[in-house]
């Protein structure tokens, strides 16, 4: 074991024009814009029937909300390795922030601030953009509040407590129509409608700034794409910074991380809070998408679906998670139904495919776990460990040399 300085100097990394952390969000934005143009010129291109059947705008918008929330969960689960089974709580809080701050729900108040409705309408009416900020801030606060007591727990225990919070918060909204005589959530009657979003509206020939109506899905799509790109950008930036390294270190070995100066509690809380921010943004966006905050929609299956998106997509990899969320949301909303219809017309059967949704879903999960545990687009390092036959821990002698190591080297090279 020699400690002399004999290794050759590493070659400096190749200069690139666009910095790495910008390339992907830009790519996402460009893909989003291309998709937008596709829809915008659908009639002229003769693609309208196809797009309306297979890729309707409302499905795409909802899928983007899923992307935003899944990316938030990815920070908690994928980066910091904290299993969270109650992410729906943040989605709900975001949704209700929109319900409270941009609707006529508080009819005894009359607060207007850059709102989208005339000032004589009762209620609290803030601009959508401010509500986004408020939803993000409130979710951050709740993330920290929920996290502070629970994050002292580890692994399975943490998962169970988050599961509990994921149940409690939607239940509070559900039963919040009479809290000591006050109605804070309208219970099962839900808060609806919410104010329209005032933004750039896409018209058949040009655009204008006005309130978006229910049919301005393409305009809302642009907002959602921008939000998703923002979260992607944030995820990538954070991952390469001090905090991202601390998250990975905690995921790898808490004890070693704390002995290396990483404050465990703070770092975990940061993951929880920042993940919650994404959940809040997604929640506000979702409220404008479905025009209200509906208590009944925030159930456990949302948390699980989000987790499935993260795991199937590729835990810890922003691209995997984005892809996973898009695919799963699309299959749930449209893909399965349309494919089933196509199948039935083709073969003259009358199978109700949508009712087999969870069967298929479960089947795919099992198959994935058998053949591709690391997800569709895994993070290089996760693939490394999941593709290893015997999981020896670090320090337990050298790892078997096979094609895996070479693959790892290639990946390490790419990362440079």
């Amino acid at each position, binding site marked *: *074991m*020699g*400690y*002399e*300085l*004999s*290794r*050759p*100097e*590493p070659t400096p990394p190749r200069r690139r024009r666009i910095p790495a*952390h910008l390339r992907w969000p830009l790519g996402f934005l460009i893909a989003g814009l291309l998709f937008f143009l596709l829809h915008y010129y659908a009639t002229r291109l003769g693609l309208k029937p196809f797009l309306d059947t297979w890729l309707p705008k409302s499905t795409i918008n909802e899928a983007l909300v899923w992307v935003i929330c899944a990316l938030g969960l990815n920070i908690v689960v994928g980066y910091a390795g904290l299993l969270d089974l109650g992410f729906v709580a943040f989605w709900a809080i975001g949704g209700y922030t929109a319900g409270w701050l941009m609707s006529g729900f508080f009819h005894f108040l009359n607060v207007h601030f850059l709102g989208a409705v005339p000032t004589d309408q009762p209620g609290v009416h803030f601009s959508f953009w401010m509500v986004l900020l408020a939803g993000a801030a409130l979710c951050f606060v709740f993330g920290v509040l929920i996290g502070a007591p629970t994050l002292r727990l580890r692994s399975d225990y943490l998962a169970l407590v988050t599961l509990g919070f994921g149940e409690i918060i939607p239940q509070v909204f559900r039963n919040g129509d009479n809290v000591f005589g006050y109605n804070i959530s309208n219970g099962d009657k839900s808060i609806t409608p919410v104010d329209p979003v005032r933004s750039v509206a896409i018209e058949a020939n040009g655009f204008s700034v006005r309130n978006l109506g229910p049919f301005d899905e393409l305009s809302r799509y642009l907002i959602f794409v921008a939000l998703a790109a923002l979260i992607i*950008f*944030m995820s990538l*930036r*954070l991952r*390469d*910074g*001090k*905090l*991202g*390294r*601390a998250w*990975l*270190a905690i995921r*790898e*070995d808490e*004890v*070693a*991380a*704390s*002995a*290396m*100066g*990483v*404050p*465990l509690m703070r770092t975990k809380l*940061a993951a929880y809070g*920042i993940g919650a921010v994404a959940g809040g943004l997604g929640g506000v966006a979702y409220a404008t998408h479905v025009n209200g905050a509906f208590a009944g929609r925030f159930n456990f299956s949302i948390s699980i679906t989000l987790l499935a998106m993260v795991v199937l997509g590729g835990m810890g990899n922003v691209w995997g998670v984005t892809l996973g969320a898009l695919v799963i949301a699309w299959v749930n909303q449209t893909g399965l139904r349309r494919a089933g219809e196509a199948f039935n017309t083709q073969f003259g059967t009358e199978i109700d495919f949508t009712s087999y949704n969870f069967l298929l879903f479960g089947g795919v999960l099992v198959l994935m776990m058998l053949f591709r545990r690391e997800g569709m687009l895994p993070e290089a*390092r*996760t693939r*490394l*460990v999941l593709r290893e036959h015997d999981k020896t*821990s*670090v*320090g337990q*002698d*050298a*790892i078997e040399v096979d094609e895996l*190591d070479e693959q*790892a*080297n290639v990946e*390490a*090279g790419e*990362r*440079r």
Partner: protein
Amino acid sequence: MSAIRAEHVTVRFGGLVAVNDVSFEVPQGGIVSIIGPNGAGKTTFFNVLTGLYEVTVGRVYVGDRDVTNLAPHRIAGLGVGRTFQNIRLFGLMTAEENVKVAMHPHLRSGVTATVLGTPRQRREEREARETARELLDFVGIGGSFGEYARNLSYGDQRRLEVARALALRPSVLLLDEPTAGMNPRESARFTDFVHRVRVEKDLSVLLIEHDMSVVMRVSERVTVLDRGERIAEGTPEEIRANQRVVEAYLGKAAKGQRT
């Protein structure tokens, strides 16, 4: 002044007394070894000094600062770097990232600065990368900065752990059985390395060691623990001559020693 000092430290786990009334210090710039048979409480004592275990009775000081029962990351931030007996690297992080994790207490950029990529944050990251490369070069694995820690050879993993601990800019370096699994030649080189680290990084070193040849060559003072108690303290020569130590430890172990 001492670099790190323990005063009458006792650690109990339920009814078990793992460390019993041990007082101990590493003088500034010194190299001190802790030896003792298996189960003597050496690693427990290490974990007390670094805050991983709570002290039941007694006090621990880093410099003249009382760090008793501070959180591990606080103690680390005050300049106590350590390695682990069974290497605990962040296996799925690159060598460079491993080292950079330990710079955590010294990096100032917050979440906003990181997301926005302010010039200050980028400069800080650049400097962190340079420092990490320098440290990896210093321990002799500069060529492996992009490797995942788990893919490094055993010896390189040991070196990486030292580099990571050095990234804390420690005033004391705690090495828990650093030569475990090394052959005599490697151990000899390692002792030279420890001397070099002390001089070049201007720090004090505390070692837990089984290999007597290393202990005798490297340390200025030796403390002997047996069953949680300190049974002797002195220069290597004094320890070698100490009857109690020979009985408790050397007498048995010496036969198997490679000298």
